[in-house]
């Protein structure tokens, strides 16, 4: 397999992982709104459902994007596809 194909395969796998995490916190958990509300796990004392909609999921998205960017940079470096500074 060519270098480029390998690079793309790794990139695609990273995409799937990223989208899976994204799916859980943007869609998945909201199938269980009522269960989250009843949960005894209350971050900072807020009902879990309320907390996830106003901070939890939002904060996770921020972290997820930075994590994704870091991983993708590693993949690019590994195959020597990183841009040169003077491009």
């Amino acid at each position, binding site marked *: 397999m060519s270098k480029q194909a390998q690079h*793309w395969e790794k990139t695609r796998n990273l995409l799937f992982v990223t989208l899976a995490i994204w799916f859980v916190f943007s869609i998945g958990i909201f199938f269980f709104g009522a269960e989250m509300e009843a949960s005894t796990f209350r971050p*900072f004392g807020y*009902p879990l*459902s309320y907390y996830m909609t106003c901070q939890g999921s*939002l904060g996770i998205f921020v972290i997820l994007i930075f994590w994704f960017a870091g991983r993708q940079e590693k993949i690019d470096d590994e195959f020597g596809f*990183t*841009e*040169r500074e003077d*491009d």
Partner: protein
Amino acid sequence: MIKGKFIDNLPKIYGIYTGGFLAFIIIMAIAEQAGMSAKLIGIFFVAFTVLIYALIGWLSRTMQTDAYYVAGRQVPTVFNGMATAADWMSGASFVAMAGGIYFKGYGYMALLVGWTGGYVLVASLLAPYLRKFGCYTVPDFIGTRYGGNLARLSAVIVLTVASFTYVTAQINATGTIASVALDIPFGVAVYVGLASILMCSMLGGMRAVTWTQVAQYIVLIIAYLLPVFWISNKMGAGVFPHLMLADEVARIADLESQFGLGSIKNSAADLATVPKGLAGITKAHSEVNTTPWKFISLAVCMMAGTASLPHVMMRYFTTPSVRTARRSVGWSLFFIFLLYSSAPMLATLSKLSLMDPNLATGIIGKSISEVQSIDWYQNWNQANLMFVSDFNGNGTLELNEFFMGGKAVVLATPEIAGLPYVISGLVAAGGMAAAMSTADGLVLAISNALSHDVYYKMINPKAETAKRLIVARVLLFLIGFAGASIAALEIQGILGSVIWAFDFAMSGLFFPLVLGVWWKRANAPGAVAGMLGGLAAGTAYLIAVRSGYPGFWGVTQLTFGIVGSLVSLVLMVVVSLMTKAPDSATQKMVDEVRIPSGKTVLGKQH
């Protein structure tokens, strides 16, 4: 004081700017103590900030295409993040979001999740690849990737429909704020707003819009966070409201049941006396009050719409590299998060200020005549944003007898909580900044698509640079003017049209953009079918639902993008597979886009 290149000095320049703005707030506060009138403070805040933006716009004037279209591709990561956040957070986010949460609770917060979750899609599916492509506009990508003027034109059509729906709402918001702060009629204020918007973008295009948006972000975030922290501390609710309002959320739930929320209903005849646009509290503050599907479908539409809206995407064309484009998405979302995570806190503080009889500011349970004699009540009643009426005739204000406009949560809460007027002036300046920055991004997205893709690429490919940029500016003016004229008619509310814009963008552009990078087999006929078919299906569904059709799958007029984008996906795949595969040059181009290194697909000047 400032030496060397502008870009190298950005932190210093904006540091001085922020310090200057804070000093201005303090001077205004002193002036208020010295007896300056509230009206004058409002005028100073709005006029001063708008003049600063205009100055930045003038300083950033340019006659080069890559500066005009993509700010010379040299905007650093963090600053691009701030500019995107301002571009993104519109008058709706600033003025209407906390109000929506206040009135609709959990069900409404799907928008918060959707408007942030979409950035994960932007970062992982699109932004870095479109940056590598090196396009000036979103239709530029579609036109080059799929080939042919028809694909390009289809993308321009979808872009125009979505962005134009959005921009009328923003110009409307600038008009609303300008009319309140400057005390002029709405019909005039809309054009004052338009003039401010054009001053920021006319001369310098994307370069000017970028540097004004950074300045606008700084104003709007200070204007949003300062009152939230101040009110929370004043009330004794917590030094850091985001982590400390759990007791207040619980207290609201107690008060809701004490005041008979949900059990006492107003009669239709009583409600008919309430001025249009005002609402009472009818939904619980924190309880899960909607079905999972309603929540999720709205969130999905907002996420896919985020990843399809051209004025957001084009901000990532301005970074120096693919790597910085990716990181810049993270910074954008971080800066957006600062405001979005504060909106529910503001809604909580606002509601508790009004409801809690133990607080000096609480009005529920007081006598009607007492409430009617409060200064702020009279002000906001006059502005048509507040209303009380003694429906049951007991002389006391009940929870179901108090009505408020959505905008009042942000605009009036500082005054209700007893903050000095200087804060209300600051909030007006913040709202103006939010609406202006988004309107600028949108007007520029439309006019760039028309000038670059329609005029230069399709009508007159031999046009000289100077001529292209004059055409771009004329179009910018015309589009702004058309938007303002429609905004002056006041057809629909701010929030409704914003949500529609997301659905339109998602219907027509989401899959053609994503598959353009991720599916090599996608070809021009498929993309055209996807864009036009998706847009047509979405629009048809919207019209049908609005004229009484009950709809299917629980898809409403707020989520019609689901229908549109599914039609778009199916058409795109089927038509692509039925027609010829893209030629090898196109396939190679897609391969090239998928790796960050090397030259961009489109040249630096094109």
